[in-house]
């Protein structure tokens, strides 16, 4: 039985607690929050054995195998370091750390201590994303990845979110190096990072504040982002973050020399984009019939998953946690290689240094000399 504790008892901690409760060989043995009442409510609702206000005390008393860190990102590094020093494996909610410097130090420490860590970019482990990964590994693209396109949209017009973050000038999201984007783009960037195999990355980012926000007198937050990425293997990617375009896409396209794949995260659909050409007017009929068939198949797959009780909203988190626990107990590969964590972090550093050029934190704290060329 893996002994698990959760540090930080806010909104995302609920998803962690609910998901861990579904994993047969894991047990939540402690929860911790500096606000005692918050720790107590999670302890009470999920029938946890103990609750704490201090991380170090919890680690000493409970001696967990794994710590899930679900606090605001500003505290990830310090808490993660404490947990590693106490001999615990760590699962850190996204974004992993504030910058690459911190990410590298944590990975180094984990390696020194022979411990494991992962980051909560769980959309990489949704049903559709897993099916896509399997097809890519089986060579469906017909060669190396040539290009990717990733749309990651977020609805700022949703009343509650707008009230909490946009209305609160002191909200922790605003104090992140990349502000709102820092807390939102990890999922999308991580999907691209998974397929970037070259070492030297070039990132060109353009960000601006939408009219929607400007009309709310909000000029500090950039909520529209367009990014071009390429590595020295000639793999390229476009990344779009938008709060304004409709539909609110969460869509990932990946192309090889023969075929492509399209994953819609919201619909949990996977579509094969065949590179096969048909003659004359057949090109206007046969592919469409194939797409229609594939969408029907996706409906059937999703319905089947639902009937099998395997279609929870956060099922990606479950698969990611299970894979991480397996890497600890069975020695299987880490679900998210450290290289991907670092690439995601580097791309994010570069984006933020370009769209917030007056911020000195990145170059000074991360030691990045030229933020465009990583």
């Amino acid at each position, binding site marked *: 039985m893996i002994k698990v504790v959760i540090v930080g*008892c*806010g909104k995302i901690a609920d998803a962690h607690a609910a998901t861990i409760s579904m994993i047969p060989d894991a047990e939540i043995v402690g929860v911790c929050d500096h606000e005692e009442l918050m720790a107590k409510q999670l302890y009470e*609702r999920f029938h946890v054995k103990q609750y704490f206000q201090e991380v170090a005390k919890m680690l000493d008393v409970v001696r967990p195998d794994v710590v899930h860190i679900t606090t605001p990102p500003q505290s990830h590094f310090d808490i993660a370091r404490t947990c590693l020093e106490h001999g615990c494996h760590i699962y850190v909610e996204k974004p992993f750390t504030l910058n690459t410097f911190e990410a590298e130090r944590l990975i180094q420490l984990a390696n020194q201590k022979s411990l494991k860590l992962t980051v909560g970019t769980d959309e990489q482990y949704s049903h559709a994303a897993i099916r896509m990964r399997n097809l890519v590994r089986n060579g469906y693209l017909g060669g190396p990845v040539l290009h990717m396109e990733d749309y990651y949209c977020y609805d700022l017009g949703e009343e*509650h979110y707008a*009230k909490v973050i946009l209305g*609160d000038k*002191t909200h922790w999201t605003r104090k992140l190096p990349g502000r709102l984007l820092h807390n939102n783009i990890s999922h999308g960037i991580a999907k691209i990072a998974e397929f970037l195999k070259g070492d030297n990355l070039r990132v060109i980012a353009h960000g601006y504040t939408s009219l929607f926000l400007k009309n709310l007198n909000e000029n500090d937050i950039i909520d529209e982002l367009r990014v071009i990425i390429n590595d020295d293997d000639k793999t390229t990617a476009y990344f779009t973050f938008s709060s304004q375009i409709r539909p609110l896409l969460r869509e990932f396209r990946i192309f090889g020399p023969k075929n492509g794949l399209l994953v819609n995260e919201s619909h949990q659909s996977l579509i094969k984009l065949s590179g096969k050409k048909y003659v004359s007017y057949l090109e206007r009929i046969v592919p469409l019939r194939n797409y229609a068939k594939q969408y029907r198949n996706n409906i059937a797959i999703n319905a089947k998953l639902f009937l099998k*009780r395997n279609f*929870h909203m956060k099922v990606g988190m479950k698969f990611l946690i299970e894979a991480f626990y397996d890497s600890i107990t069975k020695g299987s590969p880490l679900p998210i290689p450290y290289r991907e964590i670092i690439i995601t972090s580097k791309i994010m550093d570069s984006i933020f240094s370009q769209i917030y050029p007056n911020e000195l934190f990145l170059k000074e704290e991360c030691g990045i000399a030229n933020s465009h060329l990583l």
Partner: protein
Amino acid sequence: MEENDLIIKKSDRILVTGSTGFIGTRLVNALLQNGFRHLCCFVRHSSDLTTLSDVLNKNNATVEMMEGDLLNPSDCHQAVAGVSVIFHLAAGRGEKSYPSAFLNSVVTTKNILLACMTDTSLRRFLNVSSFVVYSNQSLKHNEILDEKCPMEKRPVARGDAYCYAKVRQDEIVIEYGAKHHIPFSIVRPGFVYGPGNMSMTGRVGIGTFGLFLHLGGSNIIPFTYVDNCADAIALVGLTKGCDAEVFNIVDDNLPTSRKFLRLYKKNTGGFSSLYLPRPMSFFLCYLWEKYSDWSKGQLPPVFNRNRWSAEWKGNRYSNKKLKQLTGWKPRISFDEALRRYFEYFRNARRAK
């Protein structure tokens, strides 16, 4: 309000949290109209002050506006300094997430209670709670639900973050009142309606599945019109003899769900609805609850037997205690209240 009947003088300082909200603005209006001018309105950085400013302009009054966050203990200390009565209305309404609802209702309340412990001028802490805290499991259909009714023992089983937070909030008020001698009272309004709130209470029915399911049938709906509710809150907060008491707030001549739905449809434009008799709605809630358990939350447990009991079993309600101890009477009759409500509804729709 006669000063002899009150626990404070009209010149004493009063703090109102949640003062920009639906009920809060009406409460400020009621206090100003009764001659209380030394008000401190606690507002968040993000609060929309439009309605509150309108109230102040209408009363030709100025009040102290304190901008802060009840999650910040030092803001709480600053707010309660020298205050005689606190009307605590701020809460995490409309939250689906348990931690968010809890944080914005319980942790905030604890912070303000802690601040009260160091201030000796406080004469009353009035907590504005809700009917959702009651468990009517032991009551039969049409039995009276009053202040003697127990609170929900397992609020998590209701599947409603707001219910969980409000139960824990009431508990912490009672606990701090007893342990630290903080003089408190609690009011529990039924469903508060009026201009400014277009939502339909789930006690009448739900539109979640496209078609409006009418679940209330012949049940009495515990309505209170927002101005009547604000009057009641003001009276409980200020009247002698209300210490450590709980008061339910409902209006007189409460309508049945069927009657209200008929009027609602007539006045706001018709829509289709399907009536589900009580045994049927109970059975569906039971099925949903079982499926949610079996599937480990693939569908959230938002419909369940506890909720059915609280919202659709059907009880009668009493405002006897409120009337007896404070002399409250609903100022606006049900017919007039409905007229104002529907007029607002039509205007709001036209404006959209």
